[in-house]
């Protein structure tokens, strides 16, 4: 992506975030029973969706890397995994802030919380393997295998945790939202998605530059 296009993208992300903040703090009415703290919902849920999107991208990019051995797929998997952990962290931080006044505690071993924590730790392990594990030549291959296994595990984690703590379930399974709340949520989805794509694009660019630099250094030391 050219610098100009990238700046335009940044401006778009900025505007969409302003719109999201405006919608959350000025436009949408306060929820009747939960009060002000419910507004964290508009960040909590889009962050969770972005995290899952990121984990899915890691999965697809890992398969593609093993098939083609092209570095661009490895860079995509790495960038997406970092963002998945970042957005997962946002979910895990905003959750307890919301839970404290509503459930009375910061943390409950409740199915969705538990599953998110397990998934989060799988991808933290993925990043640890990438950074301390191996010599650079082997890293992409090992990481790809891990990226595939971790994603395949997602439904198993969900199913087992739900069975384990079924009576602890505190997250609503279905929510009916008033129209203003629905629109606000959509705006936040869009803003978070754009923000995610923007970070992904920047991170990819950075990784590409780093790879190019390594290649140059290699060439210089060979000469």
């Amino acid at each position: 992506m050219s610098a100009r296009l990238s700046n335009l993208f940044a401006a778009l992300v900025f505007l969409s975030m302003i719109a999201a903040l405006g919608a959350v703090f000025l436009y949408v009415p306060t929820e009747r029973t939960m009060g002000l703290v419910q507004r964290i919902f508009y960040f909590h849920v889009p962050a969770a969706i972005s995290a899952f999107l990121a984990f899915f991208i890691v999965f697809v990019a890992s398969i593609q890397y093993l098939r083609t051995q092209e570095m661009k797929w490895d860079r995509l998997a790495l960038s997406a995994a970092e963002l998945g952990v970042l957005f997962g962290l946002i979910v895990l931080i905003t959750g307890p802030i919301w839970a404290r006044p509503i459930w009375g505690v910061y943390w409950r071993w409740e199915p969705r919380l538990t599953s998110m924590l397990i998934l989060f730790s799988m991808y933290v392990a993925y990043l640890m393997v990438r950074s301390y594990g191996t010599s650079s030549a082997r890293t992409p291959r090992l990481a790809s295998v891990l990226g595939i296994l971790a994603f395949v595990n997602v439904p198993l984690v969900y199913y087992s945790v739900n069975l384990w703590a079924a009576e602890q379930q505190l997250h609503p399974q279905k929510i009916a939202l008033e129209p203003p709340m629905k629109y606000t949520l959509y705006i936040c989805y869009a803003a978070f998605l754009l923000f995610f794509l923007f970070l992904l694009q920047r991170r990819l660019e950075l990784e590409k530059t780093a790879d190019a630099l390594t290649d140059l250094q290699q060439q210089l030391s060979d000469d």
Partner: protein
Amino acid sequence: MSFFSRTLAILRKDLLAEWRTKERLSPMVFFVLLTLLVFNFSFELGGAALHEIGPGVLWSAFVFASLLGLNRSFVDERENGCLDGLLLAPGDRSAVYMGKMLGNLLFLLAVELISLPFFTLFFNLSPGPFLLPLLGLFLLGSASLASVGTLFAAMSSNMRLRELLLPLLLLPMVMPALISCVEATALVLKGDELARIAPYLQILTVFVVVFTTLSLLLFEHVIEE
């Protein structure tokens, strides 16, 4: 040689090496006993809480012990340059995985069977009615640990901080299997009917099938130099 006979050859080699050295089995069993001891002091076991946390204590001990065994399963090969020989052997490399996986499964089962009497002794349980379902659970649980565990062991034997990274990789990954094992063991010890245990057995079966298949497919990428 067929896939099957190559798998058996590797399994036989691992069992023979273990039979002669006993380098893995005895430390693992001792480790399980020590873990039971540590948990005993951290929780002040005895009384009503026993049935609640007993299964968790047992499976935690097994998982930690499995890490010890798994760490050795590829490191030994690497130290003696044996792995290169195995990889040079003609044919599909996934047979190496299968042989190693079955070996790890058998070691783990042996450790569990040896430590079960101590567990029932320390926890004042009367073995008998729950013995058979418990053995089935041991089999499925160990197969779950061995399936991903063997792949991760091959992976981490390639890494700089191998002893450190294996638990970080394995523990979050086996969480669905661990939850199922602990819950099902608790139900078995309580003497519940099979209908309530069935969903956990399903998860374990799916876990073993899915991750063994994936490991067979991906092993090539993990072991390649």
